[in-house]
């Protein structure tokens, strides 16, 4: 695990909260929860070695591969 990346992402998350919270505090609870959930997902994802991890693109490629080969 790259600690520099973790520290960088955590700093980015703090900056995001600093920027958005003044506006968010006036909005309903649902908005706050969505914001926190999305930021958390982004923060967790950035911890992984994403380029070499199977993900949505792999899934879609697997689904459509037979059709794609038909083209070739």
């Amino acid at each position, binding site marked *: 695990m790259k600690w520099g990346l973790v520290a960088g992402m955590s700093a980015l998350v703090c900056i995001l909260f600093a920027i958005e919270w003044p*506006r968010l505090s006036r909005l309903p609870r649902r908005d706050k929860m969505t914001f926190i959930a999305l*930021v958390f997902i982004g923060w967790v994802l950035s911890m992984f070695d994403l380029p070499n*991890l199977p993900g949505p693109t792999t899934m879609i490629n697997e689904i459509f591969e037979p059709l794609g080969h038909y083209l070739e």
Partner: protein
Amino acid sequence: MLEQGKISSAQMGKMIFLAVIASAVTAVPSYSGKYAQNDLWLSPAWASLTGFLTVYAAIALNKLYPQKSVVEYSTDIIGTIPGKLFGLLILFFYIHMTGLIARGYAEFIIGNFLPQTPISIVIITMIAVCAYAVKAGVESIGRTAQLFFFFFMFPLILMPFLLRDMKPDFLFPMLEHGLLPSLKGALIPQGYFSEAFLMSFFLPFVTDRGKGMRSGMLTILGIALMLTCINLFILLVFGTQAADYLYPVMVAFRYISIADFFENLDSVVMTVWILGMFVKISIFYYATVLGTSQWLGLADYRPIVLPIGILIAALSFWSIPNLNQASRFDVISFPFYGPLMQTICPLLLLGLALLRKKGKQQSQAQMTMAPEQAHTHTEKQEG
């Protein structure tokens, strides 16, 4: 409504134009050329059929539900749970596509102009700029599209400078193996054409919606003409070799040399292309953000712009270790995945919505004619 801004139908047309053509313009001649050989100039015409169908579906659905986007009316048409599921699929499609488009943009910049720069810097700076535009709302995206549209036309003016390098012989033999190669070459461009469905997110904010159909159809026609034009130029310059280049348009513009003074015009093309890509990514990004807030029923979409930006950046790296993998998606999945989500599903939705409307009208007519009879009739239907 989440968004207070208003755009005109002409602005919407220009947004869609840039959204479809910005990435198509660099890659399509090479992808089409691979299958269509020297008939690649014919492929955009076939591909535009998908575009016309998509625009028709988007506009017809908007006529039935004028104030709603696809994420909202899908629940009205197919019920709450299936509608929400469909909305989730659409949102997943758009956030995924935004990431892949940003990746495609970055690969192009790294490959052609900034080989030393880490790819993450190129992606993150672009997403940051787009986040700023998305936060400013639909009006500012509409105006940037209107402004950049004319800049985007500039490379077409430069094309005649290539006349010296063109060989009309490359056009022949026309349709040597029948229509099939040009139809195969149309498969990838029609994926790009289906992106016109993005207009379903913008139609609720259009002030002169009556002109929506006209502007949408003209947009598709314009895209088809421009792609045909570019494919023809590329064919005349490179012949069937066009498919061997990754970005044939850039290579063609490197050929231009006027009096040893006007040279390296590919940098002009790149500048203009970055403007187009900015509009394209902003539009996809905006559709994702607005759709997500509609899907979750949020009070404001602005606070989730930056968090979704992080997700887009993550998706642009996820399971794509290199350029090969990035273009593999474009060739294998996108020609089917794009039209499935953006043309076929909306057409099905439209069919169901029309059936629902017809059923409602019939039952209303029966109710007014003979309330009791109709009551038993609907009960029978339901049973």
